[in-house]
C-alpha cells in the first residue's frame, strides 16, 4: 500500500471547501468565552454553531446528519480551523465511528444526528481503576435478565461525564469467557437511577476526568450495541480512531497554537534567541508532519486499507507533537508560568497526559513490536 501512489484528494474541491468555510467563518464571528464559563460549556456552544453551518461530521453519511464527504475533507477543515485561530472541532469523531461500524441502523439513525448536532453530549466509559492500558482487565459486569441488564461497577477517566447525557459503556457480559470475547457495549443514559458521576480534579485544576459509579443500573437490551461480545472489537476500533489526531480534533487544537507561535515568531524574529526560533520551527514541522500523516492514513483507508494496529504509530506521533508543542510554548510565553499559571500552563500540564491516555506510549510500542513488526514474545 505504501509503495504505490496515494490519492490525497481533489485539490480544487478541497480548496473550494476551505474557501467556503472561511466565508462562513467571516459571517459567524468566533464566540467569546465568558470568564466564568467552563471550557466544555464554551466548546459546546462552538460545536452547535459549527454544526449550524454544516461543519460537523463532514465524513459522516448524510442520512445520519453528516455531510457525506470524506475524511480528507475533515482534515482540510481541521487544519483550516487552526489557521483561522478558531477553537477545535468537537471530539466526537471516534464515537461516531464506533456507532457507524457497530450500531444497528435504528441506533445510528437515533443517535448520530443528535450527537453531531450537539443535542446529546456523549462520554466514553471504558477505563476502570483496575483496567487502564490493560483494558481487557475490566470488571464492570452487566448481568443479563429477560430483556434487560443490571450493570455494576466503576469507570474512571470518563471525560466530561458531568456535562454528558449519554455514555458509550463497556461491560463484561460473561464471567467465564476470555476477556476479548466477553465484553459488550451499551449506550447508557447518565440520568438512570444508580448512576453517580463524580468529577476528579486533574493536575491542571480542571475537572474534565470523572469517576462513574454504577450501582445496579438497568440497561435495556435495545441499548446494547451489536451482539454480546462485540465490545472488545468496538473498543479496538474506537481507540484506533481515538489514537488518530484527526478524529479526536487534536489537529485543530495543535494548529491553533502553532499558528500563535508562528505569528509571535514573525513579530519578534530579531528579538528571539536562535534556539527558540528553531524550536518553534520544530513545532511547525511536527504539526505539518502530523497533518500529512492524517492525510496519508485517510488516503490509505479510502484506498481500502482497514484500520488496525498502525493507529499505535499515529498515537505516538500525536504525543510527540503535543508534548513538544506545549513545552516549547511555555518557553516562548514564560509569563504563562507566572503566579498560579495561565491557561497555556494548564494545557501544558494536560499535554503530559498524552503519553498515558488511550493506552500509554509503552503499550503503543508493545503493540507496534508485536502486531506490526511481529517480534517474538519473551521466553
Amino acid at each position, binding site marked *: 500500500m505504501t509503495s*504505490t501512489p496515494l490519492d490525497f484528494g481533489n*485539490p480544487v474541491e478541497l480548496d473550494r471547501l476551505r474557501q467556503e468555510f472561511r466565508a462562513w467563518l467571516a459571517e459567524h464571528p468566533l464566540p467569546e468565552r465568558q470568564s466564568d464559563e467552563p471550557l466544555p460549556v464554551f466548546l459546546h456552544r462552538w460545536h452547535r454553531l459549527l454544526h449550524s453551518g454544516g461543519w460537523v461530521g463532514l465524513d459522516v453519511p448524510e442520512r445520519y446528519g453528516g455531510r457525506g464527504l470524506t475524511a480528507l475533507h475533515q482534515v482540510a477543515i481541521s487544519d*483550516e480551523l487552526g*489557521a483561522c485561530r478558531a477553537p477545535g472541532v468537537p471530539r466526537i469523531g471516534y464515537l461516531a465511528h464506533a456507532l457507524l461500524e457497530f450500531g444497528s441502523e435504528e441506533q445510528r439513525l437515533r443517535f448520530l444526528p443528535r450527537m453531531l448536532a450537539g443535542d446529546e453530549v456523549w462520554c466514553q466509559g471504558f477505563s476502570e481503576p483496575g483496567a487502564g492500558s490493560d483494558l481487557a482487565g475490566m470488571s464492570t459486569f452487566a448481568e443479563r435478565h429477560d430483556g434487560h441488564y443490571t450493570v455494576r461497577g466503576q469507570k474512571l477517566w470518563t471525560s466530561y461525564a458531568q456535562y454528558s447525557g449519554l455514555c458509550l459503556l463497556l461491560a463484561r457480559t460473561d464471567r467465564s469467557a476470555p476477556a476479548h470475547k466477553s465484553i459488550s457495549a451499551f449506550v447508557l443514559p447518565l440520568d438512570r437511577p444508580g448512576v453517580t458521576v463524580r468529577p476528579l480534579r486533574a493536575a491542571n485544576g480542571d475537572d474534565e476526568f470523572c469517576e462513574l459509579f454504577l450501582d445496579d443500573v438497568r440497561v435495556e437490551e435495545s441499548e446494547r450495541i451489536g451482539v454480546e461480545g462485540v465490545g472488545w472489537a468496538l473498543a479496538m476500533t474506537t481507540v484506533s480512531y481515538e489514537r488518530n489526531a484527526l478524529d479526536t480534533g487534536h489537529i485543530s487544537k495543535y494548529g491553533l497554537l502553532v499558528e500563535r507561535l508562528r*505569528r509571535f515568531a514573525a513579530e519578534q524574529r530579531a528579538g528571539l534567541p536562535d534556539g527558540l526560533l528553531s524550536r518553534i*520551527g520544530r513545532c511547525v514541522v511536527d504539526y505539518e508532519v502530523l497533518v500529512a500523516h492524517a492525510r496519508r492514513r485517510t488516503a490509505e483507508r479510502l484506498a481500502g486499507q482497514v484500520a488496525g494496529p498502525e493507529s499505535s504509530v499515529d498515537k505516538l*506521533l500525536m504525543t510527540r507533537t503535543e508534548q513538544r508543542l506545549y513545552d516549547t510554548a511555555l518557553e516562548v510565553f514564560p509569563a504563562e508560568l507566572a503566579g498560579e499559571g495561565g491557561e497555556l500552563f494548564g494545557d501544558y500540564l494536560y499535554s503530559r497526559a498524552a503519553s498515558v491516555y488511550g493506552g500509554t506510549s509503552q503499550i503503543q510500542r508493545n503493540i*507496534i*513490536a508485536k502486531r506490526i*513488526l511481529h517480534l517474538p514474545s519473551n521466553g
Partner: protein
Amino acid sequence: MDREEFVLVRDMVRSLATRHGVTSADEVKPSTRAAAQQALDELDLAELRRTSPPAATAQECALLAEEHGRRPLTTSLLGTVLLAPELLRLLGASTSPAIPTIAFTRELRFPGRTPTDLVAWDSEGADSALCVTTDGTVSRVELGPSAPSTDLVRTVRAVPSDAPVEVVGQLAADDQLRWQAYALVVVTAELVGAAGSFVEQAVQYARDRRQYGQAIGSFQAVQHLLADATVLVEACTSVTRYAAWCLDNEPPERALAAARVAKAEVNSSALEAVYAGMQVFGGIAQTWEHIAHLYLRKVRLGSTLLATTAELLPALAVPEVTR
C-alpha cells in the same frame, strides 16, 4: 502512469537493486559501478520525467527514489534519470544524446549566483552536469576527475573551475520553485527508503539473533527501540509522500513549503532511525564489511544535502505560504 504500469517500473528498479545492490563496502569498485549503471541504462527510464507532460508524476518519481534508497546502489537514478531530465523538461529543451546529472555546490547546496565551486553529484554514467543559479539560469558544465564522497556508493565528480560553461536556458520563477521542491522531494525520498529498509533489516536481525538463550527481539528494550524507529520512518514516509503529491497538485510555493517540511523531518528522523537500527545490530554494525555504515553514510550526508535542519527550522518558524 496507470497503476499496473507504475508497479512494473517500480519492480524493475526493485530487481535492479536486488541484483546490483552492494552488500559490503569492498564491492564498490569501478567495474561493479559500471555494470550496475549499464543495467540501469538498459531500463531506459530517463524519459519518465523528460516529456511534457511528464510520463511519471512527482509522487511516482519519489517512490522510485525511495525504492532506490532501500539498498546501497551505486547507480545514478536520482541524478541522471529523475533530476536532470526534469530540468530539461521544465526548460522545454530539445532532446540531445547527452546524459547530464546535476551540479550542486561543494557543500551540496543549490548553487548561488554564479556557477562556481561546483561538484557533479550522482554522476555515475553522466557526461556533463546541469547547474541552476539563483536567477534561474541553467548551465551545462563539464566533468572533471572523480571526487571522494563520504557516501561511498554515490559517485561524485569535480567540476573544473576553468572549464567552459554553456548556458542551456532560463527557468521561469515558478519553475524554479518547482525545481527546488522536486529536487528536495526526490533526495528526501531516497533517504526515507534507506532508513525504512535499514530498520526492516534490523527487525529481521532482532528476530534471528539469539542471546541469553532467546531472540533479542523478544526483549522489550529492543522492541521499544525498533518501535520508535518505525514511528520515525512512518512520519518520514507520510510527510514525503504528501510533499510529492503537492508537487503534482498544488501551486509551486506550497509544494516548496511542503518539501522543506519533509526535508526537515527526514534530516533528523531518518538519521535517528538508522542509529536505532545500528544499535540493534550491535558490534557487527561497527565493522567495515557490514552494510550498516553504507546506510549511515548515505543518511548522515543526506541530512545536509540541499538543506540542513539548522537552516530549515528557523525559516519554517515564521509564517509563509503553506496552505
